[in-house]
């Protein structure tokens, strides 16, 4: 299981990257992250919503009310142009962290 600080730091880039594939909603976002991480990344479900709302206020994503397959009201989120730019920045930063860590790890085994 990943440390909660790391999960929290990864929330925004993960949400942006998932929304880059198309609009989605809270429950689906959580299930997607759980599945992709093999269950190792677990948010407290309710805590996703403050993150989504903060990102919406910052103009990175937009929301609309729609309907689920069963006719229930559901709030869908999608990426805005500003969100795409923020996602690119996140990818750049996380790739840098990954590269530095990989480099150090290789040195360790040389």
């Amino acid at each position: 299981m990943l440390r909660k600080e790391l999960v929290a730091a990864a929330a925004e880039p993960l949400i942006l990257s998932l929304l880059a594939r198309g609009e989605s909603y809270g429950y689906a976002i959580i299930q997607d992250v759980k599945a992709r991480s093999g269950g190792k990344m677990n948010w407290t479900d309710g805590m996703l919503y403050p993150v989504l709302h903060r990102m919406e206020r910052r103009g990175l994503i937009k929301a609309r009310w729609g309907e689920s397959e069963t006719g229930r009201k559901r709030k869908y989120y999608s990426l805005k142009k500003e969100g795409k730019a923020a996602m690119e920045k996140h990818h750049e930063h996380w790739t840098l962290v990954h590269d530095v860590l990989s480099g150090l790890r290789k040195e360790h085994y040389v």
Partner: protein
Amino acid sequence: MFDLEKTITEWRRQMLAAGIRPPALVEELEGHLREEIEQLIKTGMDASLAFEIATGHIGQPRLLKHEFKKIERNSMKRVIIIALGVFASLTGPALILPALAKHKNMGIWSYDIAWLIILGAIIALAGMGMVILGFKKQKA
């Protein structure tokens, strides 16, 4: 006998009572809760246990409220910074312009005139800085 609808209504009431606002947010959380309950019931779990697990995943209303309050506080701070910045940006010229008019009338530079112009310029620049900071805060 466990009544799922009644229990969800009570849960919604508790969320509102805990100060989770606006009601549309509670509605969004309720949608999430219902989806999770439905999925758990599909696996063969009984409704009562499914409700317990799903509400556990959503989290305590107190903690949720705390997280949403943080967003409101940050927005309020930004609005205050921008409003103060705009006020200062207008106050600066309000000092500079009369000082320049006084200089034009008197035809000389006095210590008072120079002081008012410098002070006005500092206030106006600080105001503009605050406005920029306020908008940057939104992006951060």
